[in-house]
């Protein structure tokens, strides 16, 4: 299995290779991501900016190139994140469902093995995640959260960098054809 590194856009959907993962990877990696988010900031607060569950959802959605799979992964991870947060169930679920769906949709069009694509998609999906969550808070929960675009941009960049490194690590967990 070879991945092109020169082209960003795929000429047809068939050029995209569907990555497969072992079942335990599909469970363990999201669980580890959630654990990281709820556990590591206890001791390293500066790592609280890392939205690892989102990055995992994006990765699996991109690599599996299946919208249903992506939205399900996003829904499950989002609901789990909801369960461990103070927001009502479904807030992160809906956002990550949409992220998973759109990531899978983009993954079918782009060469998701390209580092820049990964960096860019991570940045964009982080912004989408934050903005959409902000909107849902305002619309569904009638909260008045601050719109911190600059902060989200910076955090988006940081998460993109982390995501690129994480994706590189998760690539090693893919099943080879």
């Amino acid at each position, binding site marked *: 299995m070879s991945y092109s590194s020169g082209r960003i856009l795929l000429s047809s959907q068939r050029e995209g290779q569907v990555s497969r993962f072992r079942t335990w990877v599909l469970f363990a990696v999201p669980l580890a991501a959630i*654990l990281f988010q709820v556990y590591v900031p206890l001791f390293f607060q500066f790592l609280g900016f890392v939205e690892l569950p989102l990055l995992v959802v994006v990765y699996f959605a991109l690599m599996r190139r299946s919208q249903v799979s992506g939205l*399900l992964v996003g829904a499950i991870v989002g*609901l789990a994140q909801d369960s*461990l947060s103070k927001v009502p169930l479904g807030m992160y679920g809906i956002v990550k469902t*949409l992220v998973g769906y759109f990531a899978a949709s983009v993954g079918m069009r782009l060469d998701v093995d390209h580092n820049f694509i990964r960096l860019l998609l991570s940045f964009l999906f982080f912004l989408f995640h934050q903005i959409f969550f902000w909107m849902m808070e305002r619309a*569904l929960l009638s909260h008045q959260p601050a719109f911190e675009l600059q902060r989200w941009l910076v955090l988006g960049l940081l998460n993109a960098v982390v995501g690129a490194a994480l994706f590189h690590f998760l690539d090693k967990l893919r099943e080879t054809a």
Partner: protein
Amino acid sequence: MEGFLNRYRNITVLLLVIFAQLLLLAVQVKNDQDVRMIRVWTVSAVTPVARLLEGVRGGGVGFVRNYITLHDTNAENRRLQEENGRLKLENNFLKTELGRADRAKALEMFQTHTPSKMLAATIIATGAGSNSKVVFVDRGSGSGVMRGMAVVTPDGIVGKVISAYPTASQVMLITDADFAAGVVSQKSQVRGTLKGDGTPLCKVDYIPLEEKLTPGEWFYTTGDDRVFPQGFPVGIVKAVRPAAQFQEVFVEPSGLQHGLEDVLIVLQGMHQEIPETPPANQPMYIAPAPPSANPPAPSEQTAAPALTGTEADKLRAIYKSAGDAQNHTFGAGAPGSKPPDFTKLPSLSGTPPATAPAPQRAAPPAATVPSSAAPESEPKRNPAAAQPAGPPPPRPLIAPITPDGKLLPVPEPKRPPAAAPASGADPQPAKKQPAPAPPPDKSDAARRANQAAGVPKGPSH
């Protein structure tokens, strides 16, 4: 319909999932109630892992911390052990130096108040062989040491020089089987020949069976052997047994009792009178009275010197002690009052009555030293702490010490002419006024004693 679903399957699923979650949200928001089941599942799935992680982390951190702490503790323990060992060594060194300074001062005092001209030396080695009774001292022919010279300490004789080398001398101890010296007992004036026995005790031969010797009696050198001047303490009788022709008398050498480290080599012997009182522990140094010491009672001040003066003084002391025993104050009673009962006088031999002041107060040095100072300041070296009062010795063994601790000249008693080979020797060193005690030299106490006594300095060693 089925084709529509197949065509829009993905978006349909998305909408369904979004709708379901919206519904879930709506329920929660509307009822203001949580859907507990989903949270329970999630928490139940996540928290055990988190607990496990926390356990691993805590254990790991604890292990690391403990390891680091233990590592530091080990290092600290090693450092403290090293410091403890260093302090122990320093403590032992200081103790040794303190003892050395004490011995040096004792040697110096003894050297300056003994008519014989002496040279201080230090034991530097012992002879080869497991049963060796010879030692080497650090003074040799270069310092004037010659074969046959006596070696003594303030406590008694030690041995004699059997070989003198330029830088060292070999000394045969009195416990050696080949050693012999003429001795005389203190009380009964029984003469004999001291011989080494190869054991810690020495034998005195040629004591006739009819002579009466008791354990505890002191032997002194007679000077007949032309090695040891007369009047040096030899030892104390430990056992007396009758044998075939003579008695078997075993003497414990007093010169070896406190170990050998610094000795005095008699360069020019001068005979001394044999004291009538046993030397006990040869006192050489008495510390001055502490500033806070209470002044002695008047009775102590008067009674103590009386027993060390003339016969009249002794009589006066005896009568005074009898009066004190009956709570009588001389000169205080009215004419015609009841006098003390003088029929209960103690014997005139110098034995103090039962109610007399303690022997420490009647010690000979009390004539020159405040009676309250010496015995209490250094009881171990008290010159007559263990000896009963008796006639004054021909020469005080302790230099008079003023209350502020300075030494005063010692009056020179008359002595019979010496019969030893060194009879023509000038007894001037004995008259030498000892200097105030210098601070102890950590390197060579014997050399310092020699310098204080005016002995020419020997070769460096």
